[in-house]
């Protein structure tokens, strides 16, 4: 005879399907290791924030985790200083320009790579990929000459175009993965419905991969924002990015550490903001299609 257990003792303990607990970290050691990793990751960043809130005298005299007299004076200074503001503005500008150019050019190319075979397509794709791996150092001097020769030296356009070297391949690579995710039947249906290709592309196709475009824009933003060698080589006075201004932060008594630290913290903010918005898609973006 089968007895039915009283409900109460049963339902509370089992509200979670076991499959969800299936892959949780097996045991304490991995969790501990993970926690150690996270701490190690955050330490230098926290230290930077720490530095930025202390004065130079305090920094040079004592080593401490906590600022004894925390002050935001360096932040005020940066946010009110025209050179700094201009520098940040310049950086944001060329990053934005570059992202727009890269994504716009890469869209049709990604479509072509995924949907068609054409002469030299494999070699072209490989060449693009290899530019992703191009050492910036190799291009520093040639770019210097090139942009000087065409009169774009020391403008945001120089840096924006220079960054296309690696950002366009990145954009094509990532977008191709998303294009692959749209079934070809959609193209065929649009053709049957009488759409001309440009109209189909802009009105139907692009909205379908809006997700992918967002992810691509994020990666282009990231790679352009962090690259400094080309940005400083191709600029002199008018279009100085923040990196150049930072390397000139000397005060009478040597390196102005707390100013540098404050500037550093400020440069992390755009990145953090952008990644927060695409956090659900980053893992998908870089790996999609290619994985």
């Amino acid at each position: 005879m089968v007895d039915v257990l009283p409900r109460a003792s049963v339902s509370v303990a089992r509200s979670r399907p076991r499959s969800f607990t299936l892959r949780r970290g097996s045991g304490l050691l991995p969790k501990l290791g993970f926690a150690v990793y996270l701490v190690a990751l955050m330490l230098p960043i926290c230290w930077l924030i720490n530095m930025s809130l202390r004065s130079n005298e305090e920094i040079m005299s004592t080593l401490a985790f906590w600022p004894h007299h925390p002050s935001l004076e360096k932040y005020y200074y940066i946010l009110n200083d025209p050179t700094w503001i201009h520098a940040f503005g310049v950086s944001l500008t060329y990053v934005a320009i570059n992202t727009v150019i890269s994504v716009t050019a890469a869209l049709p190319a990604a479509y072509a790579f995924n949907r068609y075979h054409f002469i030299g397509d494999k070699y072209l794709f490989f060449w693009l990929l290899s530019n992703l791996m191009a050492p910036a150092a190799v291009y520093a001097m040639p770019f210097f000459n090139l942009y000087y020769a065409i009169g774009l030296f020391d403008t945001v356009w120089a840096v924006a175009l220079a960054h296309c070297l690696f950002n366009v391949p990145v954009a094509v690579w990532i977008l191709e993965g998303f294009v692959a995710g749209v079934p070809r039947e959609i193209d065929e249906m649009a053709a049957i419905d009488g759409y001309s290709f440009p109209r189909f592309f802009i009105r139907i196709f692009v909205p379908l991969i809006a997700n992918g475009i967002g992810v691509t824009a994020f990666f282009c933003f990231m790679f352009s924002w962090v690259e400094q060698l080309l940005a400083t080589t191709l600029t002199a006075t008018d279009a100085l990015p923040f990196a150049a201004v930072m390397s000139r932060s000397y005060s009478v008594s040597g390196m102005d550490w707390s100013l540098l630290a404050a500037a550093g913290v400020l440069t992390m903010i755009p990145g953090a903001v952008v990644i927060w918005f695409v956090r659900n898609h980053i893992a998908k973006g870089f790996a999609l299609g290619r994985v």
Partner: protein
Amino acid sequence: MTEKPFNNRAWLMVAPVFALVLFSALLPMMTVVNYSVQDSLGQNQFFWNGDAWFRDLLNPSTEIGARFADALLRNLSFSLVALAIEVPLGIAVALSLPRGGWAVGPVLVVIALPMLIPWNVVGTIWQIFSRADIGLFGAALTGLGLHYNVTQEPISAWCTIVVIDVWHWTPLVILLTYAGLRAIPDAFYQAARIDAASRWATFVNIELPKLQKVLVIVVLLRFMQTFMIYTEPFVVTGGGPGSATTFLSIDLVKIALGQVDLGPAAAMSLVYNLITLTLCWIFFTIMMQLDRRRYA
């Protein structure tokens, strides 16, 4: 996989990309090629020098040849060490990330943070962090009794650069591996449980094989990035002490922009670029092979 139609008009769609990259890559390289086969007496007077610069470069007994060989060796050993640490570490961390739930978003953001920091700021952070007087890292190491001095001890400088690279770029390994792991269907894990497989056996027999393609991409990217590292060592050690951390990129920029030896610099650029191209080709072929096997 259905066959793709052959259509040469696709070149029209690829044209903007082609033009941009041509402008960014091929055009500048042409000037480099130009310089690499010429010599100058100053004041923009150039004369043909043939492959003299190349021969000098690839001959370890010349000054420039020795310099190049040293830098190349430094780069290769650095890449190997960095990869040997970052790949296992990255995989291990990716395995312990939460698979679902509210924690995923914030954790991914925190993990990705080091990658979003401009490279000169990374250098600055560690410049401060590694100093024995004002930095936690430096102070902790000297406090433990180690002879740690970034500006004077080559080993300290080396270790610091390795630590910086691991700190900076392991997140990339983690994110890509995590994406690869998430793509594995539940059923495989369930089958492994039914087969009474241990955690290690599950890792070796299910996760690792399914991560093959991701890992090839990861190793390719990371190797390339370590091979062309510039900003971080430049800011933290300036290439020193001596030439202990003078990697290829740093050396190249020094020669090209610092002194006026355009010829040797150009030759070095080309050889450097050729090496990266070759390595790229190898990885690309491996990737294509994996693709073909999957659809077999």
